[in-house]
C-alpha cells in the first residue's frame, strides 16, 4: 500500500468513527425521548438551543426559591407553635397548683388572644406554603419547551447522520414511536425567563395593570 492510499484509508476510518459517534449519540437521545413517549413529534424548532441553559437555570431558580420559602415558613410556624406550647404548659401548671399562683381571668383572656393570633399566623404560613407550589405550573411549561428542544436536536442529528454517512455505511433512521399520541406542545410563549430589558413583555402585575389602564381597559 502506498502512502497516499494509507492516508486515504486512515481518513476514511476516522470519518467512520465520527459517523458512529454521532449515530450512537442520536440513538441515545432517541431512546431517551422514546422512553418519555415523545419521539418524532416535534418539528421546526431550530435556533432555540442557546435558550435551553437559561430555561434550566430558571427552573433551578424557581424550585430553589420555592423550597426556601417553604422552609422559612415552616421555621416560623414551628417557632410560633413552640411559644404556644410553652405558654400553655406554664398556664396548666399554674391552674393545677391553684391558690395564689392561679392565673387571673385577665391572664387567661390574654392567653386565648395569643392563641387566636397564633392560629391566624399559622393560617398565613400555610397560605404562603401553598402559594409556593405555583412553581409546578411555571416550571412545567418551561420543562415542556426544553423537552421539545431535545427532540428537535435528535431530529437534526438524524439529518446530520444521513447527510454525512459514508457511501458504504448502512444508515437507518430511528423507528417512529410506538405511541403515536401527540404530546401537548404549548403554542404560546409561556413564562418569561428574562423579562429585564425586553420591552415586549411585562415583569410583574403592576406593569400589566399600567398597560391595560393606558389602553382604557
Amino acid at each position, binding site marked *: 500500500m502506498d502512502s497516499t492510499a494509507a492516508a486515504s484509508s486512515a481518513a476514511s476510518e476516522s470519518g467512520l468513527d465520527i459517523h458512529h459517534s454521532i449515530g450512537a449519540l442520536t440513538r441515545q437521545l432517541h431512546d431517551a425521548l422514546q422512553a418519555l413517549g415523545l419521539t418524532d413529534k416535534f418539528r421546526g424548532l431550530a435556533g432555540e438551543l442557546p435558550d435551553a441553559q437559561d430555561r434550566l437555570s430558571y427552573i433551578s431558580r424557581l424550585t430553589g426559591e420555592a423550597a426556601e420559602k417553604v422552609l422559612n415558613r415552616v421555621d416560623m410556624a414551628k417557632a410560633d407553635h413552640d411559644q404556644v406550647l410553652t405558654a400553655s404548659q406554664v398556664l396548666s401548671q399554674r391552674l393545677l397548683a391553684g391558690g395564689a399562683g392561679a392565673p387571673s381571668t385577665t391572664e387567661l383572656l390574654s392567653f386565648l388572644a395569643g392563641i387566636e393570633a397564633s392560629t391566624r399566623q399559622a393560617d398565613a404560613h400555610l397560605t404562603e406554603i*401553598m402559594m409556593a407550589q405555583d412553581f409546578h405550573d411555571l416550571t412545567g411549561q418551561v420543562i415542556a419547551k426544553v423537552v421539545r428542544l431535545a427532540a428537535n436536536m435528535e431530529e437534526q442529528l438524524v439529518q446530520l447522520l444521513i447527510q454525512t454517512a459514508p457511501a458504504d455505511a448502512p444508515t437507518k433512521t430511528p423507528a417512529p414511536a410506538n405511541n403515536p399520541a401527540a404530546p401537548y406542545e404549548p403554542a404560546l410563549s409561556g413564562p418569561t425567563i428574562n423579562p429585564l430589558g425586553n420591552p415586549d413583555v411585562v415583569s410583574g402585575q403592576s406593569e400589566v395593570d399600567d398597560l391595560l389602564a393606558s389602553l382604557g381597559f
Partner: protein
Amino acid sequence: MASALRFLVVDDFSTMRRIVRNLLKEIGYADSEEAEDGVVALQKLQGGQFDFVISDINMPNMNGFQLLGEIQKIDKLKRLPVLMVTAEARKEDIVLAAQKGAAGFIVKPFTKATLEDKLNLIMTKYGMKPAT
C-alpha cells in the same frame, strides 16, 4: 361574609387549580368547580350555572383565548366575567385578552392580595357583591 357566587377555575395544571380554589375559599368563595382545558370548561359552563370564570391561557385542546371567544358567542354566557390568570407575559397577549373581552388579567406568579383585589374590582364593575 361568605359569598354564594359559583366559580369555574380553568387550568391544565392541577396544582394551580388547587391553589386558586383554595385561595377563593380563603377569600370567601367556597363554591367552585374546575376544568383542565377550554373544551371541558365550555361543557361545564353550558351545562351548569356559574357566576365567574378564572382561566389560564396556555392550555391544550382549547386555550384561554379560544375559550373567551366561545363564551362571547353564547348568549347566556357572554356577560360572564372571565379573569385570565396566566404566565403569558407578552404585552400583545395581555392586550389581546382585553380585546377579546377578558374582565381582568393576572400574571403568574401572583399573590392572594392580587387575586382578591382583581375579584373585587371586577365584581364591582359587573354589579356583583364581593365576599367580605
